[in-house]
């Protein structure tokens, strides 16, 4: 069992590494508002934003608030990122039409459930609908499956969002974050 435990520790170390690098990348891209509904997949980003006096850490009651928050931030010249789980995307859809219709820049990081290796049937429907929903709303989606893809993908996503004014969802797939049994 020592071997299993060592593997688990190693995986956790890798996850802590890319989440920290991701936070640093988002800050370097000028993000000053981090909004979220608490989620294990974004744990380190959320904790870093709470501890960071230079950013606003906004705990939402539902993910759609974060969509409107990002639009308001843009009106004021600030950059906002919405951290959510795939189930939260379902709560956002109507507000996404304001983002698309207004050509608002928008960046969300979606930690996937209901996808590769999911063991909770309640997560499957929305998880499988994430890509079709993003396509239907004409949001750009980019996926990350490996730790070393996280930072370059985040830079690409933030560039499309904030320089080209696009709505972009970066999907942190279960190949990256693991299929958890909760």
């Amino acid at each position, binding site marked *: 069992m020592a071997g299993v435990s060592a593997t688990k520790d190693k995986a956790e170390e890798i996850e802590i590494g890319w989440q920290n690098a991701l936070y640093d990348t988002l800050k370097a891209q000028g993000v000053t508002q981090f909004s979220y509904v608490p989620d294990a997949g974004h744990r380190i980003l959320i904790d870093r934003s709470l501890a960071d006096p230079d950013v606003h850490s906004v705990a*939402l009651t539902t993910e759609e608030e974060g969509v409107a*928050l990002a639009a308001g931030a843009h*009106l004021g010249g600030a950059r906002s990122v919405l951290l959510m789980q795939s189930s939260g995307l379902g709560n956002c859809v109507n507000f996404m039409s304001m983002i698309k219709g207004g050509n608002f820049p928008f960046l969300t990081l979606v930690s996937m459930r209901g996808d590769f290796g999911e063991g909770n049937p309640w997560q499957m429907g929305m998880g499988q609908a994430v890509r079709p929903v993003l396509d239907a709303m004409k949001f750009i989606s980019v996926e990350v499956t490996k730790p070393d893809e996280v930072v370059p993908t985040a830079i690409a996503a933030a560039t499309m969002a904030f320089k080209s004014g696009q709505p972009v969802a970066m999907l942190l797939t279960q190949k990256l974050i693991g299929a958890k049994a909760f």
Partner: protein
Amino acid sequence: MSKTASKSAQPAYVLDRCEAVPAMIGDPKHFLVVTGLAGTAKDFASLTQDGPNYFGMAGAMGAAVSMGLGLALARPDKRVLVATGDGELLMNVGALATVSVLNPPNLSILCVDNGHYGETGYQKSHTSLGVDLEQMAIGAGIKSTCTVDSQDGIAAGARMLRESNGTCFVVLRVKPTDPPKFKRNMDIAASRVRFRLNLLGQA
């Protein structure tokens, strides 16, 4: 300003929004204004003459408070006014909890409560059936709140909207009658660009 409307009494819906909203706001240039859809969007399109300090929605019901929060956090040097209706606010009333935790001092929320869904034919809303939005805001943790349901309360409500040093929440109870008629620009992107050009000098 009244907490006089006792729990058992029917709330008073006597003010006319076409007069009470302008009286409450005064010079709208004092604020960056974000409104929800329908009634309040029209109130403020008329009041600002669809001006560049105004972003009014015609959809995204429930988005106004959160959008105002994002703007207020981005621009602590400006006073942000969110104007929303009872129906619009009820669709995302949890946003009051999000706001209160951060309590930005430059965010003022005005809920023009006519007790009805005016846009869809004046069906009764929850607030004319016993729901009290000021109490919900208090429960969310917002410290500065009041309900204005008569002419006497307007000056105090106006002062709270302009001077509160924490997020404030003002309910303005009005009759279920139409907002001013005003033909505004419905192009979302054009409204966004206009707002940013005015505030930031860039699209």
